Each structure stands twice: as C-alpha cells, then as structure tokens.
C-alpha cells in the first residue's frame, strides 16, 4: 500500500474572477521508504500539492489517501489530529517555536500527542543525537545557525513518528555546507530507518540526491523518474 496516493487531484482558485488551476489533475503514488523530490518552477503547484497531501489545504476534486485513509473528506479537527500523528513537516523558514529550546521544540509535538514526560525526554535526546546537535539541546532557536535550526526541525518532524515527512524547500535558506550536511543526514535516516521523505524544491543539490524526481509544470506532472 502506498504511503501517499493522490488520484486525479485538482485545486482551483478564484483569481480576479477567473479560475486558476494550481493543481491540474495530478496523480502521484509514493511508496514507503522513498526519497522523492517534487520539482518545478515557481508557481507550478508543488507547494500546493504538498499542502494538500499534508492536509493543510483542501482539494477541489480528486482523492488523496494517506496509508490507505482518505483525507480529502476529513473535517478540520480530524485533519489536525491526522497531521499530528501521521505526518512530519519541515518548512523553508524552520518555523521552530522561538521561546522553546531545541529539546522543548521536539518534546512539544510529543506532548501534543500525549506522550509521557519520561518517554519524551528519552526520545528527544535520541532525536537530537540522530540529527547531530545533542549538545545544543538547551539552546533556543535564535542562538542556533540556520543549519542547526533545520536539523531541529527535522528532529521535530520525526518526533511524532510519522508515516512520512513533507519538506517544503528545506534547504532554501541554507548555505552549501549546511545543505549538504542536512541532506546527508536525511538520506542516512532514509537508508537506515526507511523514513519516507517528500521534498518540494528547486534546489539542484536536493534534486541530485533524490532517488525519485517528479517534475511539475502548470499544475501537472510533466515527468516522473520512477516512471522511466
């Protein structure tokens, strides 16, 4: 069963009285353990697609199944719960909670899930070690470099033990070295633990390392390396 199964998905906005098809009939299946990059020029619909797959945005028509469960007909409350337990997010601007330390940012998600304090402490330590910044656990995001913040964001995304991680332009604000280190880390996690990553990106460094590349243009899939 695919982790993500988007079937003939459309997303249409009203723009100046005219319909704008941000996503125009995309079908996409992502299997467990994939390391996939969705690429394309700005405005091609990659972020919209990720938002819909992540339950952040509604679809106009079609179906989206996550682990076999349809999410396009869920209520807002169900989607919130679904995101909390089954999807990890990494954002371009890190989006950590600035008043919490690195460790607290990771534990926060677990607390929302109702994980006990002792278990939260163990898991957050393991995750910080896994992303290589255990020594920064008690430092707030404002005092971490961009690369370190994004590592915390990855650890936070994994804290809920999700079925997959959606990463929207995760390297856009990072320099080459931090990008390389972050991607190496994610690839290692993918290889060792089988964690599924789906990126929306136009960063060539991500594209070069992705095992599967799905190219969009005008809201449609124009190429998919898995199909070749």
């Amino acid at each position, binding site marked *: 069963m695919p982790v993500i199964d988007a079937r003939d998905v459309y997303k249409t906005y009203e723009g100046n009285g005219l319909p704008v098809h941000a996503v125009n009939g995309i079908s996409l299946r992502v299997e467990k353990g994939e390391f996939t990059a969705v690429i394309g020029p700005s405005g091609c619909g990659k972020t919209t697609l990720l938002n819909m797959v992540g339950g952040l945005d509604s679809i106009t028509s079609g179906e989206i199944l996550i682990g076999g469960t349809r999410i396009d007909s869920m209520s807002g409350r169900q989607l919130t719960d679904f995101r909390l337990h089954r999807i990890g997010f990494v954002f371009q601007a890190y989006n950590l*909670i600035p008043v919490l330390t690195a460790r607290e940012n990771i534990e926060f*998600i677990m607390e*929302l899930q109702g994980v006990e304090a002792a278990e939260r402490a163990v898991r957050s330590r393991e995750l910080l070690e896994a992303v290589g910044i255990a020594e920064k656990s008690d430092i707030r995001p404002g005092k971490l470099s961009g690369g370190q913040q994004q590592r915390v964001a990855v650890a936070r995304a994994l804290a809920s033990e999700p079925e997959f991680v959606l990463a929207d332009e995760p390297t856009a604000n990072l320099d080459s070295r931090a990008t390389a280190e972050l991607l190496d880390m994610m690839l290692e996690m993918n290889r060792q633990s089988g964690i599924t990553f789906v990126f929306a990106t136009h960063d060539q460094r991500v594209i070069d390392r992705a095992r599967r590349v799905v190219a969009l243009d005008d809201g449609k899939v124009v190429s998919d390396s898995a199909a070749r």
Partner: protein
Amino acid sequence: MLWHIAWRNVWRNRLRSLVIASAIAFGLLGGVFSYALMMGLANQQIRGTLRTELGNFQVHHPEYPADRDLRYALTDVDALVEEIRALPGVVGVSSRIVGTAMVSSAEGTAAVRIAGVDLEHVGEISDLAEKLVEGEYLSADERIPMLMSRETAEDLEVRLRSRVVASVVSPTGEIVYGAFRVVGLFETINSVFDGANVFVTREDLASLTGFAAGAASEVIVRVQPRDTTLEVAAAVTAAHPELLVRTWRDLSPLLQLTADFTGAFGYGFLAIILTALGFGIVNTMLMVVMERTREIGMLMALGMARARIFWMLLYETAFLSMVGGLAGIVLSVAVVGYTQRVGLNLQAWSDGFRAIGYDPIVYPESSTAFYFQVAGMVLATAFIAAIYPARRALKLLPAEAIRADT
C-alpha cells in the same frame, strides 16, 4: 507546556509587555484608590452621623414622626432604656426630649431643633463632647446650660457664657420661653447638622415645656457591629409592637443612599477603567496575533488543535494582565495603606466637605476581600479581552498563515 509557552511569549517583546502591564497597574491604582477614597468618605460620614446624631436606631411614639410634636412622647422611658440596654449587641442607649425652637440673642434669631439630653447616658450614644471647640459639655453643675455650634454662635453673635432665649412649643401647644447660658461650642464634620441643632439637659427642657416626668421624645440606641442593627431593632419591635422603631437607614434616606451606592459607584468606576484597559489588551493581543501569524500557522500545521491555540493565547493574555494586575494591587495596597494611616488632608475644600457632611481629612478604606475581587475582575477582563484576538487567530488557514511575511 502550554502555560510555559504562554509565559515566555509574554516576554518576547519586553517593552510592549511592560507598557501594557504598567497601564494596567496604574489604571488599577487609580480605580482602587478612587474606590477606597469614596468608601472612606462614605464610611466616615456614616460613622460620624451615627455616632454624633442618629445612633443605629431610634424608638419613637408612632405619631411622632409626622410633625415631631412634643405631645407624642414615650412614657416610662427609663425602664425602656434599661430593657433595651440588656439586649445583646447594644453598646449604648439614651433618651432625649426633642422639639423645635427659636433661639434668640440680642443680635439675631435661629430656628433650630432643641434636644434635651440625658446627662447620665448621653455619652453612650453621642460623641458630641469630643466635638467641642470651646467651653465645656453640659453638666448638672451648670444652671440652664446650652450647647450650640460655633456656626450658630457666630450667626447669633454670642460667646461663651452669653445668655440666649429659646422659645419652644410645649406639649399643650403653648409657646414657652426659657433662658439658657451658652456653655460650649461644638463643630462636627457636618455644617448642616451644626446649624440646625442645640443641646440642653433633659431636665431643663422638661421643666420648661412641662414634659411629664419619666417621658421623652425618643430613645437612641447604638449597637455593634453595625450590621446587627436590624436584628436588635427587630427584637425591640417584637417586644414593643406599639412603638415605632426605625433604623438609621429609615431615619436618613440620604445616608442610606450613600451606604448603598458608594460601593456600587466605586465598582462601576473600576469597571470603566478595566474596560478601557481591556481595549488596550485587545489591541496588544491583536498585534501579537498579527506578528505571529506564521508561527500560529505552523502550530496548526504540526497538529496543535485550535482549542489549544485559543487557550495558549488566553493564558498569555492572562499572564500579561496578572503581571500588571499584581503590580497594580501591590501599588494600591501601599498607597491606600499609607493614606489610610496618615489621612488625606483636603482642607483646601473644607467648607464644601462640611456642607455635605464629610470630614475634610479623609482616610481611604478598602479590604482584603476587595483586593481579591479586583484581582478577579482583572482576570475576567483579560479573558474577555483575549477572546476576540484569539478567535482571529483561529480563523487563520494554516497553509496561508505559514507563508505569511511575519
């Protein structure tokens, strides 16, 4: 962790939080001090009037209040006084003969209420002896002594030891005349009272008017604590249904109004200040929501339920208000406590204060319970003020909020 985040969020913008907390603190100080000042004024007036003039309740012949005629007297009044004195809560009882009189000197005439007091017990129900500014209190050693206010003495252009003539309507309806010697001048906080009353001994007034032995116009009773007045008055009514028993509230509607409305007015004033502060809090929290749109969107995206986001913002507002509220209450306790100890001297407006029965030295009053109520009001204001900004936050769509510039 929600509390934790909310508390730390309060201090993300220290300057802004301190400004709004200071506004709350000083607003509260203004409201609490105004309330304490009004309560001090009102209670001083009530205490003063009760202690000098009215007592907690009075007993009359049922017909007496209609025209305050000396014909309607209480008989065997000394026995009644002793009976009332035995009731629990009673700390003072005394009888008086009260009539209307014209007091004349060579230079003028004044229409007054003349009260013949029982020298043995009058100190139990009136502190007029402490209000003397010249001369001595009434005593059996003096012949036909009279007390009048300094104000009346000035109007009549009389001095201590001067003789004045009082014309009084007797119980039989005749006008009788009697000479009295001014032995003391008093001055209370109430210039209306001062201008309208003179005091002589019960024996002298009875002798002048032909009042029956053992009779009096009224019995004045003091009880403690003040809130047992109704209970004790009811006991007297039950024992003597043929008599008219009226509490200070019945005797002085203006005083009743003061007692009932001062507190309400103080709370109303405080509520207006808190409402104004509430708008300040709404403004601050709206700015917070606007500034943190992306962060709120991120929290939604990560799976934080909207209800939790709502509560997080509510806690944040509550913390901010509690910081200001606590500072305001501490300031208020200090300022009210200090002025309560030393008094607030408003002598510059002394004449105006005395004209309406207030002491120009005001001792603001408040209670611990009041401060708890204020704390509750601040918290309620904070929660109400937080609702609109929090609802605005909940209307954000995560996909759009994450892309916000802020």
